[in-house]
């Protein structure tokens, strides 16, 4: 048996480091060749890293959320044969890894992390080190796992060693509520495990909604969420946004959409409103080149594009992503619909290629049926405009002195006021409005 170290491979495009966003294996698991072991995130895309040899996982190279350099130790496997790690070099290699290696009990001693505090948190609540066996219960076991009936008195600190306190912090357990079975009520690791195994809270005994609750949970902002946070913060910090909201009568458009779906839905695919909006944007942008642009404020240059690479804000399980519909100006309605579906699916499943997640020149965002009345979309930096779609509703309108029912929908758009004037923004949205309210114009060259 030998030890095989899988290192973070070079995934190209000049990427020097990645963030660990998911582990698909845990120490002790047996993996097959090509079995996915981890997901890592580059600037935008999530990449699955497979095992290139079969073996048993001994240690992981870091915790979810940690950044690994290309070439850093990703996973350590026990394999048949010699492996690629010599025993006497094990500790040296381990020390090169940017993170402590989470080892299992049967890992070689040399691979074990040296300082306990450096042990990275397990991606999921770790199994108790010595989970109290149910059979070991009895009166004593019950007494050991019984939670403290009430918190200790104010000011009295729970008694626990630093290691136990740190473990409690990691697991989000408030030690004031944990029963200490040791001398003078000292809380041990076993007490902590027992508390966690019993799901802790005394409140669990009664499910009244009127009891005080004191739990708090800290969620690390990592992976895609971190990227989103950084991106949004950057956009809001750098770009002086202004928003413009306009009401649009989409009765004719909706009738056309439904008619086209009846006629061609089965053969060409179903149309949503988005392809129509994309078409309207493409046409309107011909007269507003300053809006289909990216602003490099460091260099002081606005780049205007003839092509419309339309970012389509897409909700995924991990959070918001913006896949790109390339050359939207060259696509008809059904091609647009199919392309939007394809890139959105790629983003949701994490299979989108990097060039499908970058390079947009303007962005379209929609909350669909939850779209509300108005919103203040955040510009997808370094673009200069974003068009948001609000919910379509049927409302009474006056037409020729009579009240008629019409389908209305608001567009809420934001612009970078450094490069887009309010008047131009209003004219652009009015141009879109004219196209959407008289949909035949969408197809007139």
């Amino acid at each position: 048996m030998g030890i095989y170290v899988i290192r973070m491979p070079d995934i190209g495009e000049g990427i020097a480091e990645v963030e660990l966003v998911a582990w698909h294996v845990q120490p002790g698991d047996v993996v097959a060749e090509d079995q996915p072991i981890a997901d890592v995130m580059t600037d935008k895309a999530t990449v699955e890293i497979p095992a290139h040899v079969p073996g048993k996982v001994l240690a992981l190279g870091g915790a979810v959320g940690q950044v690994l350099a290309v070439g850093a130790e990703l996973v350590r496997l026990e394999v048949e044969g010699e492996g690629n790690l010599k025993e006497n070099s094990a500790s040296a290699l381990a020390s090169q890894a940017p993170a402590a290696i989470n080892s299992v009990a049967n890992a070689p001693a040399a691979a074990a992390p040296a300082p306990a505090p450096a042990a990275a948190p397990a991606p999921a609540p770790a199994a108790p080190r010595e989970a109290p066996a149910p059979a070991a219960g009895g009166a004593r076991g019950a007494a050991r796992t019984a939670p403290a009936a009430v918190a200790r008195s104010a000011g009295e600190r729970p008694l626990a060693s630093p290691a136990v306190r740190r473990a409690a912090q990691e697991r989000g357990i408030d030690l004031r509520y944990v029963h200490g079975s040791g001398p003078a009520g000292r809380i041990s690791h076993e007490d902590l495990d027992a508390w966690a195994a019993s799901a802790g809270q005394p409140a669990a005994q009664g499910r009244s909604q009127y009891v005080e609750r004191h739990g708090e949970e800290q969620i690390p902002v990592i992976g895609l969420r971190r990227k989103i946070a950084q991106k949004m913060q950057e956009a809001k910090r750098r770009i002086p946004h202004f928003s413009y909201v306009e009401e649009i009568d989409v009765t004719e458009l909706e009738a056309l959409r439904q008619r086209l779906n009846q006629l061609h839905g089965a053969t060409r695919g179903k149309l949503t409103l988005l392809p129509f909006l994309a078409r309207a944007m493409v046409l309107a942008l011909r007269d507003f080149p300053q809006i289909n642009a990216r602003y490099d404020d460091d260099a002081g240059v606005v780049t205007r594009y003839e092509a419309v690479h339309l970012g389509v804000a897409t909700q995924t399980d991990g959070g918001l992503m913006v896949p790109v519909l390339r050359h939207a100006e060259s696509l008809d309605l059904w091609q647009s619909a199919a392309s939007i579906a394809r890139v959105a699916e790629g983003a949701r499943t994490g299979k989108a290629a990097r060039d499908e997640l970058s390079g947009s020149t303007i962005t379209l965002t929609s909350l669909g049926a939850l779209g509300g009345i108005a919103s203040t979309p955040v510009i997808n930096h370094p673009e200069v405009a974003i068009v948001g779609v609000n919910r379509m509703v049927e409302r009474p309108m006056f037409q020729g002195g009579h009240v008629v029912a019409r389908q209305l929908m608001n567009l809420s758009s934001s612009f970078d006021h450094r490069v887009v004037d309010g008047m131009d923004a209003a004219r652009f949205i009015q141009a879109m409005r004219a196209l959407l309210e008289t949909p035949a114009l969408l197809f007139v060259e």
Partner: protein
Amino acid sequence: MKELSTKLLVIGGGPGGYVAAIRAGQLGIPTVLVEGERLGGTCLTIGCIPSKALIHAAEVFEQARQHATGSPLGIRAGEPTLDLAQTVRWKDGIVQRLTGGVGGLLRKAGVQVLQGWAQIEDGKTVTVRGADGQAAQRVRCEHLLLATGSEPVALPSMPFGGAIWSSTDALSPDVLPRRLVVVGAGYIGLELGIAYRKLGVEVTVVEAAQRVLPSYDEELTQPVLESLKKSGVVLHLGCSVLGWDEQHGVHVRNARADEFALPADRVLVAVGRRPRTTGFGLESLQLDMTGRHVVIDAHCRTSMRGVWAIGDVTGEPMLAHRAMAQGECVAEQIAGHNRRFEPMAIPAVCFTDPEVVVVGKTPAEARAAGLECIDAAFPFAANGRAMTLEATGGFVRVVARKDNHLILGWQAVGRGVAELAAAFGQSIEMGARLEDVAHTIHAHPTLGEAVQEAALRALGQALHI
């Protein structure tokens, strides 16, 4: 202006700041550290380390002088002389090695160090101006960590400069004054005052309170007081300082309102330190403050999201090891770990002669907290190792809860007791009871036996007294 973006920006390269930066770097957090002077901050450059070096040199010189006049150990030596410039060079060499070491550790952790002075623009933006006229650069960050430390407090009537020394000046003397007046009998004033006395300087200490080391309990400071008197340090307790002039020296008023002057070549003003919160734009953040220090919570968070503060700038206790622990705590939180800064006790050591160490609660503090407690002391006069070191003054004292014998605090005074701080701190952090310490075999002959004996005595089981 050149711009730089990072995840963590640390202002201040002292023990808090550099530890935070190293830990952050180890955790893969892009980190920039800004330091205007030397890495290591007050502790390494003008505080703990150089003062302990000077104290050690003074101690060795004092011993040599004793051997010249007849020693009970049977050692006879000639009258020693002191090459002060060499002593200062030796001290500076230690500082140099340590600050250089910090620079190396930061590099190893991948931390970018900017030499210059920080000016905060907002909670995410700091401008750094090079100390030597280098172009300024703007650093944008997600997290800003304030670790700006503290500075010595001057007396309005005696600003630092010339003959009026701050503790920094006292650590790099060009010549030894014949007469030194120390204003303030806290730990800084006494540590340096005792060292200067051992170097042969006539030392007078003026203190407004009625006793030395007023923040420690009287029983603990008694051996220090006796040592001061024995060494020839003149004390003026309960006296306030009015001013200084070159002809008469330091003008003092005692508790009976009598005024007199103390002749002095140099005056060391050591009346305390205050957090460094001005001069770098901190006020623009409008953080919650208490007095002069930044208010932080148990996570070392300030009142502004993404802005953290550690160490002396957050107030008492102003101790390097507290700042270090806080720095580590902050770095790990930024890396996504759940952490709180919640030590059971922070040890405090006073390197006077004899040394004083305090960890946890004193008997008075425990009783004030409403705890029924027992305490017991074991004197070094009954400790064999202390006798062999000619250091039988002082004692170790333990404080424990009466009901369950949980140890609440340790205090010790005596030669070398600073090293006992580790055992004291560990026993409290581990939640040890008197029995745990009493039933641990302590090596013989060591000063540590007094620790075990104090615990035994609190249990009524002392063996050697």
